[in-house]
Structures are given as C-alpha cells and as structure tokens.
C-alpha cells in the first residue's frame, strides 16, 4: 500500500549541464502554476516542452501550441470504408458470388444492407479512433526515461509536471532551473539518461514469450499436418456428433449372430415377397428356358441366368459394335414376339410419357436418335459419343418386342440399362410406345381410321 501523503523524494540540489541528463522535470501543485510555467518556458523559445497531468487541462493545448487532430479524419475514413465494405459484401456475396434467393427478397437491395453497413462503419471508425490515439500518442511505450524521475509517479495522482527535453536548442539548465523554481515548482529534477541494461526487457520475459510462442505453434502445426497427410486410422472424433450410431452397417461384423455377419442371408428355400419373378416372358422378355438349355449354357451363365441377357450387342445394327462376341448368344435367344400384358391406349400413353422422360433426351422425341443430349454431345465433338441408332432403322423395327424390352432393361452397347429406374410395366409401356412410333413411319393412309381420314391433308 503506497501512501499519497509521503512527500516526493527531495530533488537534486543543483542541476548541472550534465551529459547524463535528458532534460528537466518540474513538479507543480496547481493547474494555474503549471500553465504559467509553460508560457514562461515557451517564451524562451523552447518548444520541446510537455505537461504531464492526472487529468486533462483545459487551455493547455493553446499553451503548448497543439493544433488540429487527425482523429476525426480517421473516423470518417473508417466509417466510409466500413459502410462501403458492408454494402459491398451484401452485394457481392449474396448477389454475385453466391446468389441465393430467400424469402422472396431481391438478391440485393440497399434496405437490408444498411444494418451491416452501419455496424461496420461504426466499428471501423472506432478502430481508426483508437488506433490513431495509440499511434499519435506514442503508445504503447513501456519504457520512458521520464518514468525514472521519482516525482513523476505523482503525475498520475495529484501533481502537474512540466518536462523539458535537453534536445531542445534553447535548453539551458542554468537558466531553466531558477525560472521553474520561481514559477512555483515544488521540485526540479533531471531526467536520467537511460541505462541500457535497465531499459531492457528482462530475460525471463523474453524466454517466457519465446516458449509461449513455440507452444502456441504446436496446435496449428498439428492441424496442418493432419490436413495434408493421409492416415489409415479412423479420424479423431472430438465431438461424437452422429459418427457413432447404434446400428449395423453393411459388410460389418456382429457378435449377435453365430456366423458373425451383421448382414443376414436369405432363409434357404424362400423368396422375398415381390422377388419371385417367375414369369420370364414378362420379366425377361423371352420364352421360358428349359432346364436342359440352361445346363448347356456356359458355367457363368448357369449361375445367373440373367447374365445371358446382359449387354447383348445388336448383331443386326450394322454399325461397328464395341463388343461383338456375345452376338450369337443374343441371336439365339428366343425373344417373345407378343406383348406379355394387355396393350391398350392408356398403356401406350403411359409409354409416351415415360419415353419422354427417360428416352427422348438421347433418342429424340421422334426416335431418330437426335435428342438434345445427343445433339449437344456431338456438337462438343469429343469423339466418344456414339449416336443412338434410329428406332426406325429396319433392324430395330424387326426386333421382337422381347428384345426391345431387354435393351431397355439391360442396355445395349453404350446405352446403360434402365431396369433400376423404370419399373417392369413401364418398360413394356415404352416398348409399346416405340412400336407405335415405328409404325408412324411405315403407315399408309389405309391405316388411318375412316372418321379421321378427312382431317388429313397432304404435305410434302
């Protein structure tokens, strides 16, 4: 506990023009006295004079000749920058770089941009003001020779200190000291020249700072390493979030079952509901294969009869096919020639709609092989696109419906299979529609019903 009533240490009795002095500090007990002293000192032509006081002194600026302040300009600059930056962010981020519509608001409008712009204007202006205060006030400055004058500690308490720098051209200790005393100074002290070792920051602080800096580098280094390298170990999970869920995943083990598998095989001799698919005509588009024929088939096909049907190449297409070999197999298959389901207008309409969704993008609405995707891909001329065969080509027209069904289900050449996307009945509907489409190109006027005939007119 320090005592304020203790008198300041007595000043050096005489101040010489001393190479160890950096100036003089005079202590005053009233505002008026220090203001008077400042005027006296400045009248001597001394400019490097300053007053240290425990509170701002009104009228000191004039006495010291301080004028103007850059702070308002800094504030205006900060405010403009913040305001402009706020509006710019709202515009560029939400309307240009990542435009997204939300709640029917325009992508950019000045109205909702104002709050952020306003806040940033205030924030940056405040930064400018505080930054300017520190910058122009010479802060932080932890080591100041004036602090070494014992009397100085009362500059933040109850005394007004006048400090004159020895650097000033008009500085003369012999003249100044009596003058200051006359002006009512309680004490006049020399500012000691800094002892270089004392002014230095203690080694322990340097060490501690260095150690802390090194330690602080460890986490970012670890993070950087983790981000740039691969690891076979599962990642660290600081917050479990939904990483670990109490459920079995495919291909994982489980101790619940004797075989250790978490995936359960089907019970032997059973078929899952809806998976029977006993009707080959309907599900595969071909006549049922007798067990004898199956026995003669290659072993791979025996294991999975449908393998026979996958990716058959169209032997009759005439175009150079990618994979010729299975062609014989395809030709040998006994495709159904009749629809295995009732065909009516609603089925064809359904087929038209599905065709429009799944097929027309490549095959074109008319089946000419001129869909938008095809045209676009050919335009890009990347050389890898094979134009789909026109559905009106003779070989295709002659294909049995079963083979068309198979092509849709399993794909052909570059065309992928659509079995997973289009249900069986819809595939047959598409086949029916393709048949209707094919018919349009080979029809004659005799095919047209009598009542519609008068509506037709000739075009070339």
């Amino acid at each position, binding site marked *: *506990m320090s005592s304020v009533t203790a008198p300041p240490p007595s000043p050096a009795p005489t101040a010489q023009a001393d190479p160890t002095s950096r100036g003089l500090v005079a202590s005053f007990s009233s505002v008026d006295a220090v203001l008077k002293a400042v005027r006296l000192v400045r009248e001597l032509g001394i400019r490097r004079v300053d007053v240290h006081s425990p*509170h*701002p002194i009104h009228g000191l600026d004039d006495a010291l000749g301080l004028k103007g302040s850059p702070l308002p300009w800094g504030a205006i600059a900060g405010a403009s920058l913040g305001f402009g930056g706020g509006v710019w962010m709202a515009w560029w981020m939400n309307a240009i770089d*990542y435009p997204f519509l939300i709640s029917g608001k325009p992508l950019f409008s000045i109205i909702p941009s104002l709050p*952020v712009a306003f*806040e940033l204007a205030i924030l940056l202006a405040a930064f400018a003001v505080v930054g300017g205060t520190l910058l122009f006030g010479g802060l932080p400055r932890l080591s100041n020779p004036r*602090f070494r004058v014992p009397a100085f500690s009362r500059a933040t308490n109850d005394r007004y200190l006048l400090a004159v720098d020895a650097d000033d051209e008009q500085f003369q200790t012999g003249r100044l000291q009596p003058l200051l005393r006359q002006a009512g100074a309680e004490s006049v002290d020399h500012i000691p020249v800094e002892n270089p070792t004392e002014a230095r920051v203690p080694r322990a602080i340097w060490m501690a700072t260095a150690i802390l800096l090194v330690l602080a580098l460890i986490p970012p280094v670890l993070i950087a390493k983790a981000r740039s390298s691969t690891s076979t170990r599962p990642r660290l999970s600081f917050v479990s979030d939904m990483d670990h869920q109490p459920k079995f995943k495919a291909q994982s083990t489980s101790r619940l079952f004797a075989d250790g598998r978490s995936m359960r095989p089907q019970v032997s001799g059973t078929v899952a509901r809806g998976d029977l698919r006993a009707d080959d005509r309907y599900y595969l588009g071909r006549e049922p294969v007798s067990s004898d024929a199956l026995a003669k088939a290659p072993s791979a096909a025996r294991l999975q009869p449908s393998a026979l049907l996958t990716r058959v190449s169209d032997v009759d297409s005439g175009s150079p096919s990618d994979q010729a070999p299975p062609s014989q197999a395809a030709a040998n298959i006994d495709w159904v020639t009749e629809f295995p389901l009732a065909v009516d207008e609603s089925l064809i309409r359904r087929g038209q709609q599905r065709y429009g969704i799944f097929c027309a993008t490549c095959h074109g609405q008319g089946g000419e092989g001129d869909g938008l995707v095809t045209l676009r891909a050919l335009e890009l001329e990347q050389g890898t696109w094979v134009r789909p065969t026109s559905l009106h080509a003779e070989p295709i027209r002659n294909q049995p419906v079963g083979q068309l069904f198979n092509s849709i289900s399993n794909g052909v050449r570059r065309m992928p299979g659509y079995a997973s996307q289009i249900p069986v009945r819809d595939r047959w509907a598409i086949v029916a529609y393709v048949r209707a489409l094919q018919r349009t190109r080979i029809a004659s006027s005799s095919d047209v019903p009598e009542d519609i005939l008068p509506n037709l007119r000739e075009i070339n």
Partner: protein
Amino acid sequence: MLLTRTVLQDTLNTREHTDMATVSLGDIDNTIIDPAVRPGVMTGDNSLASITEQVSSLAEQPTAPRAWKIAFGISVGGTLMLFALIGYLIATGVGVWGNNAPVFWGWPIVNFVFWVGIGHAGTLISAILFLFRQNWRTSINRFAEAMTIFAVTCAGIFPAIHIGRVWFVYWLAPVPNSLAMWPNFRSPLLWDVFAVTAYATVSAMFWYLGMLPDLATLRDRATTKVRRIAYGIAALGWSGSGRQWRLFEKAYLLLAALATPLVLSVHTIVSFDFATSQIPGWHTTIFPPYFVAGAVFSGFAMVITLMVPARQFFGLKNLVTLRHLENMCKVVLATGMMVGYAYGIEFFIAWYGGNQYEQFAFINRALGPYAWAYWTMVSCNVLAPQLFWFKKVRTSPWAMVAICVFVNIGMWFERFVITVTSLSRDFLPSSWGYFVPTPVDILMFLGSFGLFFTLFLLFCRYLPMVAMAEVKSVMPHGKDHSCPA
C-alpha cells in the same frame, strides 16, 4: 410549495458555510436543489490525492475482504456450472433445452436479449450522458461500462451455443469456407452478429481507452514488482502528457459520438430479429425504439442494483452520491414509462389494426396460458417504477434496489412473453404447445449470473472502479476547468 420553500431554505443554509466555487455539501443530502447552484458531483472534502487514494486503495488491498471471497466463491461456482452445462450441451445437443416445436426460440434467446439489454445502460452513461455534458456520470461510468462488457459477454454465449454445432460458429461471419458460400446478408440474425460483435468490441475499446490513465495511476502506485509489470503493460506507458490528453479527449468524444448511434442500433437490430417476421405479436413497427427504451430501463435498474451495495461496501458514498442514485431512478422511471407506452400502443393498434391474428396474439398474452408471465411483466415494469414518482423512494437506496430487482425480473419476463407466447400459438392450432423449461435451461441462466458476477468481482478487486481521471477533471480546481470535453 411549502415543501419547496423548506428545501430552498435548507440549501441556502448549507451554502452559507461552503465555498461558492466548490459546492461540496459534506455529508448532507445533496439531492435538494437550488436552481441557481449546481451541486458538485461529489460530497465531502475531496482532493486529487484523496480521490486517487480512495479509489486506488480498493484495487490494492493485499488480501481480499472476506465478503468478497464468499461472493467470488459463489460466483465462480455458478460460472463452473455454466461451463459444465455448456459442455454437456455441446456433447449431447441442444435437445437438453426445452426448445421444441412450436417454441423453437426458448430461454436462450430470452437470456440473450436480457443480457444485451442490461449492457445498454453502460454505454448510455458513458456515451450519451457524456454528449449531454452530464458530469455526474464520471462517478459511475467506469462501473457501468464494465457492467456493459460483462453483460454482453454473457449475452454472446447464448446465440453462440444455440447453433448446435458450435465448432462451426465461424460460419456466422463472412469468412471464406470450404462450402464456398456466404452468410445471408438479408437476415436480421446476421445483422445481430455484426451488431453484437461491433458493440462488444467498441464498448471494450471505449472502456479500455478510458481506463488507461487510471491504470497508469495504479502502475505508479504499485509497490510490488508483479503489480508494476502487470499495470505497466496494461497502461501501455501512459504518461498523461498534453499531447496524449488532447488525443484522449478527442478520441473520447468521437467514441462517444460513435457509441451513441451504435447502442441504439444494437437493440434495434435485436428487435428486428422479431419484428421483421410475420409472427403476430412480433411484427410491429414500434419494436426498435421500444426495445431500446427497455434495454436502457433494464440496464439502469441493474446499475442501481449493483451500485447501491457496492458504494456501501467499498465506501464510495462520497463519489456515488444519493444524487447519482436519484438521477438514475429518474431515468428508470422515464424509460419505464416509455416501455409502458409501447405496451399500450401495441395493444391499441392490435385492436385498431383489425387483424384477427394480431388481436388474438394480444388477447392470448393477457388472458391466455401465459397470462401469469404477462402480468408479472406489467406489474414489474410499469407499476413498480411508478413508486419513483416519490422523492422519498428515489432517495432511499434499499427501496430502489428492491424496485430495480423487480424491474430486472420484469424485463426478463418481457422477453419471455414476447418470445414464448407468440411462438407457442402457431398459425396452425394443432401445433400449439406449452413451453416448459428444462433444468438445464434454468441452471444455465443462473450460471450466466455466476459468470457476470465473477467478472464483476474481479473488476472490483483489480481495476479502478471509478474513473479517477474523469472525476478529477470535473472537480473544481484552479479556474473553471470543469468540463472533460
């Protein structure tokens, strides 16, 4: 009339034995007024040195007083509970709160608005009263500003943890991220992020800048090496030179001018969180000024609640005089009337506007399942402050603490009423529900008080509680140098 005469007579009698320049009224009640005389900011015989000694010694006690230790222990307990619950929340998920359909905004937002509002009084005292040249603010502004910063700290916790995956909190700010997307600048919630961040930053800078001279005082009085280094670094080498003071005063004025619209904007934007929506009871144009008035109201109530025990305990009665307290009570009364005005106008326009949803929302507030909360709010916020019409109440410290505690309760309930009553009555009656807080909700709110008081007690223990330099600058010394700016 008779009363005024007596009052005047008293004042005149007092003036006879006081210096005309320094109207220090000693220990007598300085709330009486003679219009021709401006009473000093303080009572008693104060000098520059006595102010330094009185304020600094509070921060220099080698061992803390027993009462401080007990209070600190309790507060730290609350803080630890808060942190533990936050850990629990992060590990488990926001489901530990009572927030659920249709009340998705429960206590967290209520607590957020409550704490942000508390903070407003500090800025009002430090900035707006400064611009209005209210010198009496110098005794209480440091205290109130500290309260602002701690309250905003408490406030910031709730929106930060309510986002669920707190480690993505930086998504709230427009920083480039791996998703290559930006926050929505048309959302009032984003405005809130900017507003509260700017507010916390500017308040902290304002506070710190204002404290530099006082930190230098503590540095120069330090008797131990640790204190000298700690306060020496904190004071940044402040020397109180003419140039520094000049910059300081200019900066203070500019920061006050910046903080004034800022403080208004913060609660305005908080009110936008509600009022830009279409929820009945939320969407009403009076919300911005109404929220600001409510914030100042609750903030001043909190200042009084803390100030009265603090001036008693730390022996600051000569600096924080009865007149200070009376002035603050008047501000509480005035802002309380503004809040009451807003309640009334909201009700009137709900009827006048003829929108049946709006009408329902207000009838439901007053008569629905949350009527108890609504009437708690009205009694605490509108009725309780009416007692401040009486001078006797305005000048009895403990009576005003009681009223101000009620005001704080009422202002918490105001946010509860706004948030929960409107949400619990969705447009779809099948979704209607009744909000019930979980123990986590309640304990977290209590824990936030623990954090607030922890910070506050640390402030009281280690930092200058009264802005010494500013008080000195309004003391009559020398000639007329009474204005800090």
